């Protein structure tokens, strides 16, 4: 196979990964890593480097729209980024000393968890009572809905902050946005309405991914030949996905993809266990 053929196939694959990632809400980066390692037999470290870039591109592209609409809680995002960036840099440092098979197994486990998270019940309720810390840090805010501005208040800020640090470590270690953990911290722990937690998580993913991407770039994880088709393909796929989402409700599609992702995750774990990475 020539470089040209490889690039075109990878571009098409990355486009599909971006599309699936966007329709399921998993994120293109998560889907592209198994594609690169299981199908193209690319070293998982190159896959992680390319996926991180795709995550930054997706997050920044999508966040630009949400920030303007005023749904994203920028103060909350900034406060939690202390936890995710420190975690991400730590994760990227640990990654060097972690065997690739262990990383593959961990990745599979997170993939299973993320798939389960996307089909769970979502928090629509806005809390009317916040914890003392939420007032001190000025985290309580409001967001626009069909029925006007809805204000919400935050609970368990400390616990949410800790989960964010863990999300950061995993993001740095595995090269993914770990959006599922971020939403878990905000949605289930801090009781933030789903729409706010999703967009704020998306807003944070770019910064979290950039924190570890800097370390990975210096370590040679980012190969131009892989990064180029993956970044453009995933970005294109995610863009198509976001356009499709406004016109259809991909509920059935979501279940099908989540089951498919479960098999992929199982294969990652299986191959990692058998030292195939």
């Amino acid at each position: 196979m020539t470089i040209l053929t490889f690039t075109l196939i990878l571009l098409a694959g990355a486009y599909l990964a971006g599309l699936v990632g966007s329709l399921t809400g998993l994120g293109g980066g998560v889907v592209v890593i198994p594609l690169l390692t299981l199908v193209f037999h690319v070293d998982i470290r190159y896959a992680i480097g390319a996926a991180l870039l795709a995550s930054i591109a997706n997050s920044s592209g999508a966040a630009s729209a949400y920030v303007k609409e005023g749904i994203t809680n920028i103060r909350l995002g900034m406060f939690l980024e202390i936890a995710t960036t420190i975690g991400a840099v730590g994760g990227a440092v640990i990654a060097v000393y972690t065997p690739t098979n262990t990383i593959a197994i961990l990745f599979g486990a997170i993939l299973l968890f993320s798939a389960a998270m996307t089909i769970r019940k979502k928090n629509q309720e806005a809390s009317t009572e916040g914890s003392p810390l939420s007032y001190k840090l000025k985290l309580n805010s409001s967001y626009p809905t069909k029925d006007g501005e809805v204000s919400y208040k935050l609970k368990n800020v400390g616990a949410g902050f800790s989960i964010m640090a863990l999300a950061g470590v995993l993001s740095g270690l595995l090269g993914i946005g770990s959006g599922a953990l971020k939403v878990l911290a905000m949605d289930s722990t801090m009781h933030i309405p789903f729409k706010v937690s999703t967009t704020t998580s998306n807003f944070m993913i770019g910064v979290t991914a950039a924190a570890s991407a800097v370390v990975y770039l210096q370590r040679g994880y980012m190969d131009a030949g892989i990064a180029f088709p993956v970044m453009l393909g995933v970005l294109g796929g995610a863009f198509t996905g976001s356009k499709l989402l406004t016109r259809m409700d991909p509920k059935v599609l979501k279940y099908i993809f989540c089951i498919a992702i479960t098999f992929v995750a199982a294969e990652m774990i299986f191959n990692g266990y058998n030292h195939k990475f």
Partner: protein
Amino acid sequence: MKKVINKSFLADADIDKIIGLQLRYGVVIASLIVLIGGISYLVQQGQGAIPPYHTFLGETAGYTTFSQIAKGIGAGQAKGIVQVGVVVLIATPILRIAFSLVGFILEKDRLYIIITAIVLSVMLFSIFGGLKI
């Protein structure tokens, strides 16, 4: 009093708008550079065989520092151009933090000036600290 509230709200909305635009342009510019670099890469090496991606070369592959990337472009290597796009992309969210910092300074929100400065320091530490333990 009412006027003051309005003014700070306006500044807040403006900064949000600037951040939104900055993020969008960052991604668009990075993608264009990567696209140009990628096409040149295919023109230069498209007919060659795929490099052995199943083995990880790490830093020996080059393009991991600013000077190596600059040298690559000087030598007319397309991979250097792609890597510039990669650097622009990584810089986009980092620049966003800097814009947020300016926003909080304009709002005179001391608590969030400190919080944003901490996040920015972590990023700068990650860039210049090297972390090659």
